[in-house]
């Protein structure tokens, strides 16, 4: 459904992705693991069009995405929940969700999606008229995910959803991600530093090291891989 082909990305003169190939099939949760600066976020930013590749291509259902501006990528059905959440702090929770539905003009569908999001995250419903900047970190992450879902995406790109959250909250968020995938039917690309949690959730995974994909396997395969255990799972 989504395919990255020999994707190279440069910031100025520095190449940060050295030609990566990656594929996501419909209904999957695919995780991208890697250390800081490996190029995980850049990969997602290139898919959503905020960063333009130097060469290579991004295909979505055989149509190329990499030449489209970000808002066209959202219209095509790919929503990106960025690193650091990037919610609109001076707007209310409800306004943030409305913005998530910016590309959708079907009021009935928006209402249905919103009900679903309030079911997934009841705390957002309680706080719908509160300014988003006053929410706790965990609530902001829920809002960021909810806002991403408001566009009714086929693919949801999640960048470090567990960043800075308490372990208990991480568990809740990851359960909800699974629910979004299973009952919502949304394909998910998950970038995570918390490799163990991500692999438990995912069907398949890629390991990114300084701009190259060094490993690609099923989630079980990666969990059992001794290199992965050493580098990312704290085992040895």
């Amino acid at each position, binding site marked *: 459904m989504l395919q990255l082909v020999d994707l190279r990305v440069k910031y100025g003169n520095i190449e940060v992705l050295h030609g990566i190939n990656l594929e996501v099939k419909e209904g999957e949760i695919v995780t991208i693991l890697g250390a800081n600066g490996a190029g995980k976020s850049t990969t997602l930013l290139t898919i959503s069009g905020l960063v333009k590749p130097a060469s290579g291509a991004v295909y979505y259902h055989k149509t190329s995405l990499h030449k489209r501006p*970000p808002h066209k990528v*959202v219209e095509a059905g790919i929503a990106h929940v*960025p690193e650091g959440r*990037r919610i*609109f*702090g001076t*707007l209310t929770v409800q306004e943030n969700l409305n*913005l998530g539905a*910016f590309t959708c003009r079907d009021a009935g569908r928006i209402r249905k999606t919103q009900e679903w999001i309030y079911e997934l995250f009841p705390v957002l419903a309680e706080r719908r008229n509160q300014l988003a*900047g006053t929410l706790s970190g965990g609530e902001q992450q829920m809002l960021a995910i909810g806002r991403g879902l408001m566009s009714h995406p086929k693919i949801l790109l999640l960048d470090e959803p567990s960043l800075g959250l308490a372990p208990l909250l991480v568990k809740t968020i990851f359960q909800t991600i699974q629910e979004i995938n299973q009952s919502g039917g949304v394909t998910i690309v998950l970038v995570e530093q918390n490799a163990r949690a991500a692999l438990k959730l995912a069907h398949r995974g890629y390991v990114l090291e300084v701009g190259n994909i060094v490993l690609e396997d099923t989630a079980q395969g990666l969990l059992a891989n001794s290199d992965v255990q050493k580098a990312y799972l704290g085992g040895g």
Partner: protein
Amino acid sequence: MEEFFQQLTNGLAVGGIYALIALGYTMVYGVLKLINFAHGDLFTIGSYLGLTLLTSLSLADRLGPAAGVLVLAVMVMGLVAVVGALLERVAYRPLRQSPRLSAVVSALGASIFFSNALMLIYGARFQVYPQGILPKVAVNIFGLDVPLVRILILAASVLMMLALYFFIQKTRIGTAIRAAAIDQDAARLMGIDVDRVILFVFLIGPALGGVAGLMVGLHYGQINFTMGWIYGLKAFTAAILGGIGNIPGAMVGGILLGVVEALGAAYLSMAWKDAIAFGVLIFILIVRPTGLLGERVAEKV
């Protein structure tokens, strides 16, 4: 007491004009974090276009004063909006990825270009608006004779500000403008075409600034190609006073500045008018560096 209320209504009318211009500064700053130094000249262009249309089409004779001025205002707004959009296209869009200072220099260049173009076309001398477009009558409010023009200016600017506020708060494009002002990339990820948002800002701001130019022409009767500089500076002050980037702030700042300036000029000295205006700015910035309505929301990490 009569003197006080006369100066108050005068200040409110001038304040309305400042506020209309200030909105253009604050909206552009909000989305692009750029001070559009050419904005004062768009205001001047509005007053000159108003003069040309007024004399060449003789709208007031054909449609009567009320409808004539209304049609004239709409035409001026439309034309200056187009100039604003062209300005963005030519002077700012090519520099979108450049350091912010480049755009500021480009803005200053555009300002010089506009004021000199006006001088070449219309000449360096003051131009005079035809007299008697709006009937020179006074309206009696609580025993006070207030010139009709003042009331019309205040009413028109308040009406336009309310319309703008409603537009920004309630419409789809308005919400997109607010989102882009907070975080452009996040707005893009919501599916908002930020280039279009910027275009809209460069249509609305110049339209309001242009109609303010027309108001000055109708009110004072005299216009000059350099007047955009001082009006622009005052309106910029008003925008900072209210909190730059904040739309209600520009409205409050403009009105406040107009009133303080008028009262100061009346009771202290006419010569101190500008000093008072900038003195207020300095005072507010010392007490509240973010401006009167500038917001400070702590980002939770």
